[in-house]
């Protein structure tokens, strides 16, 4: 589904991703862990098409499409979804009408009929239950004045409505209380199918108790320095990153 090969990305001349490789197949859940500043969010942004990143070399092929050449909205319509580490507040844009517009753009792209207000409302009501979100938040401007946890739930609600094929969750667990964490995780588990995949960026093993990853990768200084199964996350929890970092310092 997604194949990243030897990806080098820099910001204003400063290399951030330095030869990153990643293969994601349908139905898989990949966890990406790694120290602050190692390039996790950069990877998420590059995959979703944010401007300001210089692609120096390498490729990212998604469903046979050259991802890095596509406009962000086309990537979204092709099924990529990024749950932001820091969701943006958008004053004056109503949360519901925003999401309806987004869904209908995606449906149009897929050749499906647009949903009218009534059908959309019943869909959104159903998905709200999944994330146990307060209905008031639908009537408010997108994320404006939402608490940290409410913003994260709103991201997952959007994911549930837009039904992506490849979802990238960037620290969706940060800022969530323990109940919210469980709710978000069970939402993800319910949305999980054999044909969609998740890349879950997190600092905490805790989330991976609920969302069981097939693979765990450690990103450091713009490279994946270690990949393993869910046991790797437990080991990291116990030992931290130092033992890995030391190893990667030595020439490979």
């Amino acid at each position, binding site marked *: 589904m997604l194949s990243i090969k030897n990806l080098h990305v820099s910001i204003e001349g400063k290399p951030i991703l330095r030869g990153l490789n990643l293969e994601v197949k349908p139905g898989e859940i990949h966890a990406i862990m790694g120290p602050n500043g190692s390039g996790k969010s950069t990877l998420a942004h590059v995959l*979703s*098409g*944010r*401007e300001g990143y210089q692609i120096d070399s390498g490729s990212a092929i998604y469903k046979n499409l050259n991802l890095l050449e596509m*406009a*962000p*909205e086309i*990537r*979204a*319509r092709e099924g990529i*979804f*990024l749950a*932001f580490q820091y*969701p*943006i507040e*958008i*004053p*004056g*844009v109503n949360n519901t009408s*925003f*999401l309806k*517009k*987004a*869904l209908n*753009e*995606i449906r149009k*792209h897929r050749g499906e009929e647009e949903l009218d207000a009534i059908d959309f409302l019943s869909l959104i009501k159903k998905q709200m239950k999944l994330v146990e979100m307060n209905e008031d938040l639908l009537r408010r*401007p*997108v994320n404006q004045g939402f608490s940290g946890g409410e913003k994260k739930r709103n991201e997952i609600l*959007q994911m549930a409505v*837009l039904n992506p094929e490849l979802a990238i969750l960037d620290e969706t667990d940060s800022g969530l209380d323990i109940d919210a964490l469980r709710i978000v995780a069970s939402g993800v588990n319910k949305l999980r199918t054999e044909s969609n995949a998740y890349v879950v960026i997190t600092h905490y093993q805790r989330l991976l108790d609920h969302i069981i990853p097939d693979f765990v990768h450690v990103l450091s200084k713009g490279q994946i320095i270690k990949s393993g199964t869910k046991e790797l996350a437990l080991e990291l929890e116990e030992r931290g990153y130092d033992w890995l970092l030391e190893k990667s310092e030595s020439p490979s």
Partner: protein
Amino acid sequence: MTEVSTNFKDCIQDQIHSGDDTDFALSPELRSSSLAILNEGIFPTRKDEEWRYTPLKDILGRKFEFISNDKLNPDLLVEHKKVVPDAQHIVFINGEYSAEFSDDLTQQANAGLAIKLMTDLDPTDRQKAENIIQNSKLSDNSIFQHIALGLSQSGLFIDATNDTEIAKPLHLLFLSSTAGSTSFSNPVNIIHIGQNSSLKIVEQFVSAQDAQAVTIPADYIHLNKGSSLDFYKLGLESEGTDHISNTAVELSESAELNMHQYLLGSRLTRSNSEITFVEPGAQAKLCGIFLGNKSQHLDIRTYMDHAQPNCTSDQSFRGIMNDRSRGVFNGMVLVREHAQNTDAHQSNKNLLLSRDARIDTKPQLEIFADDVKCTHGATIGELDEDALFYLQSRGISKVDAALMLTHAFASEITQEIQIDSLREYVQHKIANRLRHIQTTNA
């Protein structure tokens, strides 16, 4: 109007010498000082601080010439009236009152509201109306006010009695048509609201397509004790129009003004509003949107005179400038020495949608009292890149995302419009204008 091609200054001179005293809206006594100023014929230049950002070259160079023999399509008026369907409609065409298209003035559509033609006032009404003008001294005493005062041959005296809530809005439609020559209109409207009464007025300036016009209206408004006015001004004239308006409002004790301006039209728009608190305890809320594209020039000036204590003013204006358009916001809040316990706020936020667009904003605060709460601020910015990306990352195209954000920026003002049909119309007009902006940019 004659059909000879002539320029703006000649056009003024022609009008000084046309008509008898009885043809004019105001009495010879009141007109005389304006005529003196008109005879001097001095127009503001960019050396005048209040006109610094608004050059008059184009309007002064304008030719007044024959356009066409087209008849006005009455459907046009039917459409415009729908903007406020449940209203008393009064129509001016090329500056002249149109009995044909207006609701009958003699049949009082609203109990307690008398509406009379300025050219048709009895001495008592004339005294009452002209007193209001005489009491208003505009700080921008440029020649344009006098083009209306000295030369107007049309306009209304709108008089609301005491203790009455006037239910139906008054919808004043000023239409420039393509019939005949370049249209020149300078109506003077005088509005008097009796104690504890309330009134809603919508002034809508529109054009038949491609009309060439100069519109120089002036409104003088007096709110008596405890009265209130909701006043909406819509500037939607054609690209062939120059529009320079003055509005003076005086508020007596505990009176309340809500004034909205939506300026989307004309080649040049200059809208000057001056509010004076003549008694304590009154409040004024001013807000508006000015939205320019192509090479439109939109200039909003406000002058808030806190001459009395315990008054509140709140101003919020937003500019959206595209293409090569220019916007000017020039807002003065003056708090005089004995105006204690004044609460005055002013904000001007602007969005530049193109590199060639420009905005000059000049918020000013002069405070001579010591017990006051005043804030003011202005910002000029572009669309938020993070918000654009967020919307795009959900499948919304960049153009649509920009549209949504710009519309959101405007709707924080338009959502305050209290007449449902009008709010929808203004929002729709803004959306349309933005759609045009986006597609021409894409």
